C-alpha cells in the first residue's frame, strides 16, 4: 500500500471566545489517497469545515486573520510527508495555493472586489515564484479551462461584473492554478442555484480527471455527495460518525445519524398528491443539534437517537471497521444498525412505525 496523500490523526479544534469554549472538532482521524475524492457531509456546527480549514492554517492561527476567536488546533495532519500542525506560517504559505488549492462557498465575498479577476488568478501563480508575464498567460489559459468565454476580455473585469456561476469558475481557476495535489472545496455549490450547481459539479469532475488531483468536498447535500464522492465521511458534533466507499455508506448504512439523514429526504416515489386523506410524512430526526460549548461526552448523536443505549450516552464509540461490511467502511456506534432495524421492523410489522423515529 502506498503512503496516503493526507494522514489525519486525532485532530482537535477548539475556539475560545467571549462566551466560553467551543468544542468544534473532537478527535478526527482518517487518510486520503492521491486522486481520491472525499466528501465530508454534516450540518452546521458538525466541524466539517473547521477541521479541514484548520490543517492548512486558515482558521485564525495566522497573523493577518482578524478573527476574534482564538483557535487551538491539536493532533496531527501529515500532508505528503510533512506535518501541517505546528508548521511555521511561512512554510504553510508555500504549500497553500501550490500543493493545496481552495475553493470557498461564496464566490462574491471570497474574491477581492477591487482587483481584476485576471490579477487575482495570476497572483496565485506569482506567489509561488513564477514570473508575472508567465503567470498572466497562464491565467488566461485557466480562464479558458474553467469555461469562461473570451478570457482576454474577462480577465480585465472585476468580480462584480461576473455572474454568480462565473465568479465560482474564477474561484476554481484560482484553486487549480498551480495544479495542486489536493483541492479543498468548502461548500462550493451551496450559494448557487441548482442549474449552475450542476454545471460547477460537472466542471469539477472534469478537472479532477484532467489533473488527477485529490479532492475534499465539504457539503451538507446528500445528492451532491452521491454525484461526486469516492468516499463519504459523515460528521456530527465534531466527530466522524461513519465513513466509507460511497455505495457502502448509502446502501449499507451503519450509523443511525446517516440513516436518519438519508431517510428524512423526500422521495418522489412516496408521494401521491390529493386534497383528501392524510399525506405521507417525512421521516424526521427528532430533537435539536448538539450544544458545542459543552465538553463532549459519549456518542454526540445519542440524545436524538431512538436506538441509543446507556453506553452511547456515557462512552464515546471508536470509529471501527464494519465487521461484515465493505473494506474501508467504518462506523462509530455501539449499536448494530441493521440488526436494530430488523428488530424494529419485526416488532412493529409495518414500516410506517419508522416514520417517527424518535417518538
Amino acid at each position, binding site marked *: 500500500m502506498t503512503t496516503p496523500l493526507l494522514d489525519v490523526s486525532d485532530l482537535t479544534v477548539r475556539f475560545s471566545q467571549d462566551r466560553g469554549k467551543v468544542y468544534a472538532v473532537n478527535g478526527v482521524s482518517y487518510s486520503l489517497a492521491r486522486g481520491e475524492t472525499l466528501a465530508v457531509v454534516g450540518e452546521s456546527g458538525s466541524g466539517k469545515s473547521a477541521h479541514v480549514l484548520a490543517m492548512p492554517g486558515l482558521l485564525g492561527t495566522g*497573523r493577518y*486573520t482578524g478573527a476574534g476567536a482564538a483557535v487551538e488546533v491539536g493532533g496531527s495532519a501529515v500532508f505528503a510527508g510533512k506535518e501541517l500542525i505546528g508548521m511555521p506560517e511561512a512554510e504553510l504559505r508555500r504549500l497553500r495555493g501550490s500543493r493545496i488549492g481552495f475553493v*470557498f462557498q461564496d464566490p462574491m465575498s471570497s474574491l*477581492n472586489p*477591487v482587483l481584476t479577476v485576471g490579477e487575482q488568478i495570476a497572483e496565485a501563480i506569482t506567489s509561488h515564484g513564477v514570473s508575472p508575464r508567465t503567470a498572466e498567460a497562464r491565467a488566461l489559459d485557466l480562464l479558458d479551462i474553467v469555461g469562461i468565454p473570451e478570457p482576454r476580455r474577462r480577465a480585465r473585469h472585476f468580480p462584480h461584473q461576473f455572474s454568480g456561476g462565473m465568479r465560482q469558475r474564477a474561484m476554481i481557476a484560482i484553486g487549480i492554478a498551480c495544479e495542486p495535489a489536493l483541492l479543498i472545496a468548502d461548500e462550493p455549490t451551496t450559494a448557487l442555484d441548482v442549474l449552475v450547481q450542476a454545471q460547477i459539479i460537472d466542471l469539477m469532475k472534469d478537472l479532477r480527471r484532467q489533473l488527477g488531483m485529490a479532492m475534499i468536498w465539504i457539503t451538507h447535500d446528500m445528492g451532491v455527495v452521491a454525484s461526486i464522492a469516492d468516499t463519504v465521511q459523515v460528521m456530527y458534533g465534531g466527530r466522524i460518525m461513519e465513513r466509507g466507499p460511497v455505495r457502502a455508506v448509502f446502501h449499507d448504512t451503519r450509523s443511525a445519524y446517516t440513516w436518519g439523514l438519508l431517510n428524512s429526504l423526500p422521495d418522489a416515489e412516496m408521494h401521491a398528491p390529493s386534497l383528501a386523506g392524510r399525506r405521507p410524512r417525512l421521516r424526521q430526526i427528532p430533537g435539536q443539534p448538539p450544544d458545542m460549548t459543552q465538553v463532549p461526552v459519549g456518542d454526540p448523536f445519542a440524545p436524538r437517537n431512538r436506538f441509543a443505549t446507556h453506553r452511547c450516552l456515557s462512552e464515546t464509540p471508536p470509529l471501527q471497521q464494519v465487521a461484515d461490511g465493505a473494506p474501508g467502511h467504518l462506523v462509530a456506534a455501539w449499536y448494530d444498525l441493521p440488526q436494530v432495524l430488523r428488530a424494529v421492523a419485526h416488532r412493529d410489522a409495518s414500516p410506517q412505525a419508522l416514520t417517527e423515529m424518535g417518538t
Partner: protein
Amino acid sequence: MVRRFGARLIQSVILLWIVSIVGFSLLYLTPGGPLAMFAETPGMTQEDVERLERQLGLDQPAPIQYLRWAGGLVVGDWGRSYRDDSPVLEVIGSRIGQTFKLMLAATAVAMSVGLATGILGAVRQYGRFDRVTTILTMIALSIPTFWFGLLVIYVFSQRLGWIPPGNAAPVGDDSWLSALHHLIGPALVLGLLSTAVWSRYMRSAVLETLAQDYIRTARAKGVLRSRLLFHHVLRNALLPMITLIGLELPSLFGGALVTETVFTWPGMGRLFFDSISYRDYPVILGMLIFSAILVISSNLIADTLYGVADPRLRRR
C-alpha cells in the same frame, strides 16, 4: 459615474438650500434680532433705529427678507458688514487664507501620523503598540483643544521658548521660514484631534478588511504577507478613508476656530468672535453659509473621488 455625480450634485444643491433656510431662520429667530446692538448704542433714538430698520429692509416679513438675502447669495452679494460696511465676501476672503493654511498643515500631520498608527495598530491588534496608541488616541479625543493649546504655549513658548506664543507672523516679516515657525504650534494642536480620529478610523477599517472572506482567499493562495497587506488589505481599507476627508471637515473647521482664538491666529476664528461680539449679523450668517458650502462641496468631491476609486461604482 456621470449619473452618480449628477445625482450627488443635485443633492448638494438641495442641501445648500436647506442650509440657507436653517442659517437664516436661526439668526432671525434669536431674541433681540439684528438691531439689538444698535438699540443699545447710546445716542441712538427710536426713530434712528426704525430708519435703519427700513434701510436694511428688516421691516419686511421674514420670507421676503429671506428671498432677498438668498437671491443675493446666489449672485455673490452676501450683504455688508454692520461694522465697516465692507462686503461680507471680501471680509471672509481676507481671512480664509490663514485658516486654510492652518487646516491644511493640521490635516497633513493628522493623515500621515493617523493612517500609519491606525494600520500598525490593526495589523498587530492587541499588541503593545496597539494598546499604547489606543490609550493615546483616547486621550487625544478627550483633551479640550483650547486647554491643550494653552499648555503648549506655556510649555513650548513661555518655558522653553521654542515656538512663538501666537500670531501668524511678526509685522514686517513675511519670510516663509518665520511663517512655518509660527505654524508649528497651532498646526500640532489642531492636528492632534484629527490624528486620533484618522487613526481610529483607519484601525477599524483595516480590522474590518482583515475579517473579509477575500483575505482568507488570498492567504489560501499563498500570497506573501507584505503583498497581502499592501495589495489586498490597504487597497480596500483606504477606500472609505476618502470620504473621511469630507466627514471630518466640519470638526476640523470648528477646531481651527478654537485653535485660532488660543494662538491669536488671524483667521476666520478671530473674525467670528469679533463678529458675534459686535452682533454683525451679515458676517455671522455669511460665515455659517460659507462653512456649510465648504463642507458640502468637499463631501461632493470626496464622494466623486470614491466613485472613481472603487471599481464597483466606476462602471455603470
